[in-house]
């Protein structure tokens, strides 16, 4: 394997001690190449209420601030940025941003779109956006400006939304298809959701219309379930997903199930429940089944385990027909953004690798919360070529804020700019960072 680590001689002893101290507190994830030190970047001092912690050579600028509850983000090939809001701001659900003077910060902002939601992608002359039940697209002109902001084409409609896992995150391939997450409106498909003693339903009726990824055409209007294909099933909820151009396949990040110890205190203690199950990355193909709700993935046993609602005891394996994950992360970190890096700005080891925005946990309580970071997984030949690692950290503001879950910022959406910079959104206060490599 190539040398992945910065040679120690280039590290100041101070930052090394800091990294070690953070690791020892147990509050910072130190998986993967945990010997790699991190440096604190300097942002605009006026905005530096939390400094992101990044690998050596990377810097973050606050591209925009207080934009709204910014979810997914798209950057067009001329640098125009579109970001989707989970809640309307001044009646608008999509914000257009632009850094016209090239100082790394947006200096133009305008809004349109009357629906809140999560999904946002620019592809082949169109801006695509989703509400919690529909997907729309807006035609773009040669400068990537929306031609008629008041009249989007409705391409997908009538998707189930029952107040749980409602975000219709989506991505597109390069062959004219849209892949939409329809999250399960349930934790583990119990007769009574999240209720102790309520058994799992087998077969799980939710899977007919949710708990998977549906494929639709990008250019056909008013499609609904009958027009689409259930591309993959057995996925509880997916918010982060991306089409990997290196493999020409769909990758998704599943939000794993909650509440093992509160629903099954005789089988799981709070520490186990905080770590289990893994938050999983899957590579999907038509017909993929990832096993929810019948199984979950245990990253310590490296096995698919029968869910306790279906007769499991934390040890019995099951799901022989279900896929194994490509990468298994610690539990409950809430992956909300996934991006395969195809740019040339970052060092070579980042090429074709995966960035994951972890929104941060709540279901680890009473154990310390975790997440609020952007992770990276190096890929080679379409497979992970090393352990996952923390790429950008300290969105929460402090180890204490991470542990309590009272994070200042929570990473959500990811996008790659035309210059190879990485954009990260926060859906708490609406800050958008632009992360660049300056060697």
């Amino acid at each position, binding site marked *: 394997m190539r040398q992945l680590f910065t040679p120690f001689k280039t590290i100041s002893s101070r930052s090394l001690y800091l990294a070690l101290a953070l690791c020892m507190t147990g509050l910072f994830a130190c998986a993967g190449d945990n010997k790699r030190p991190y440096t604190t970047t300097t942002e605009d001092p006026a905005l530096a209420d939390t400094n992101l912690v990044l690998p050596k050579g990377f810097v973050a600028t606050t591209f925009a601030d207080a934009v709204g509850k910014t979810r997914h983000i798209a950057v067009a090939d001329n640098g125009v940025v579109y970001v989707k809001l989970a809640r309307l701001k001044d009646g608008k659900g999509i914000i257009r941003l632009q850094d016209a003077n090239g100082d790394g910060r947006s200096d133009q902002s305008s809004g349109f779109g009357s629906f809140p939601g999560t999904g946002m992608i620019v592809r082949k002359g169109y801006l695509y956006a989703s509400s919690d039940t529909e997907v729309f697209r807006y035609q773009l002109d040669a400068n990537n400006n929306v031609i008629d902001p008041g009249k989007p084409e409705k391409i997908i409609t009538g998707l189930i939304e029952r107040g749980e896992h409602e975000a219709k995150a989506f991505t597109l391939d390069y062959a004219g298809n849209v892949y939409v997450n329809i999250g399960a409106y349930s934790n583990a498909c119990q007769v*009574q959701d999240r*209720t102790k003693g309520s058994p799992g339903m087998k077969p799980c009726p939710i899977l007919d219309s949710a708990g998977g990824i549906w494929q639709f055409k990008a250019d056909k209007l008013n499609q609904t379930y009958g027009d689409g294909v259930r591309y993959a099933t057995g996925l509880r909820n997916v918010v982060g997903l991306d089409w990997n151009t290196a493999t020409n396949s769909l990758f998704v990040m599943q939000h794993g199930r909650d*509440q093992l*110890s509160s629903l099954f205190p005789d089988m799981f203690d709070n520490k186990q429940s905080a770590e289990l199950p893994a938050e999983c990355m899957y590579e999907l193909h038509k017909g993929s089944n990832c096993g929810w709700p019948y199984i979950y993935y245990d990253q310590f046993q490296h096995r698919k385990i029968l869910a306790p609602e279906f007769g499991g005891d934390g040890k019995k394996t099951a799901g022989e027909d279900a896929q194994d994950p490509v990468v298994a992360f610690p539990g409950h970190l809430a992956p909300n953004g996934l991006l395969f890096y195809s740019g040339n700005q970052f060092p070579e080891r980042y090429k074709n690798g995966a960035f994951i925005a972890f929104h941060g946990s*709540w279901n680890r309580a*009473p154990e310390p919360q975790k997440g609020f970071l952007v992770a990276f997984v190096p890929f080679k030949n379409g497979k992970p070529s090393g352990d996952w690692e923390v790429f950008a950290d300290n969105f929460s503001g402090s180890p204490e804020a991470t542990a*309590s879950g009272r994070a200042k910022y929570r990473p959500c959406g990811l996008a790659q700019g035309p210059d190879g910079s990485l954009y990260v959104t926060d859906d708490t206060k609406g800050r958008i960072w632009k992360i660049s490599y300056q060697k």
Partner: protein
Amino acid sequence: MQVKSIGAVLTGGLFALAFTLMSQTKKPAAKPAAAKMGPVQVKGGMQASLDRGKQVYLQQCLACHQADAGGVSGMNPPLIKTKWVLGDKTTLVQIVLKGLTGEIEVDGDTYHNVMAPHSELSDQEIADVLTYVRNNFGNKASAVTAAEVKAIRAKTH
């Protein structure tokens, strides 16, 4: 564990719907009544109820509402100085007994995670945990007694 019938589930859903509709027109009283902490009402005295209530909170509530009762943005509502916690005891006891589904609004923010029914808790446990929540996390409101929970449970279907 006993399995709830579909009827019970429907009833729960209808209750939650009715409750949601009701809450849009009739908000729980904003001002909490002055705390009444008479040892006659509260089994073993106020402190004993708070101590027992804390244990119930740790086991039943903390996983979602969090250690500081601040909840989880967009999912699990906070229990700090809200009308829901400090207001009408009947509403509060019924939420514990029947759970809650559908979006609710607390202090201008909306929350939509499912809260399971906790009718398996005893009258005393519900009284204790609600007394604990109403007198912690910056809250100050009257104690809830087991007798009150019993009476509300009898009228709650």
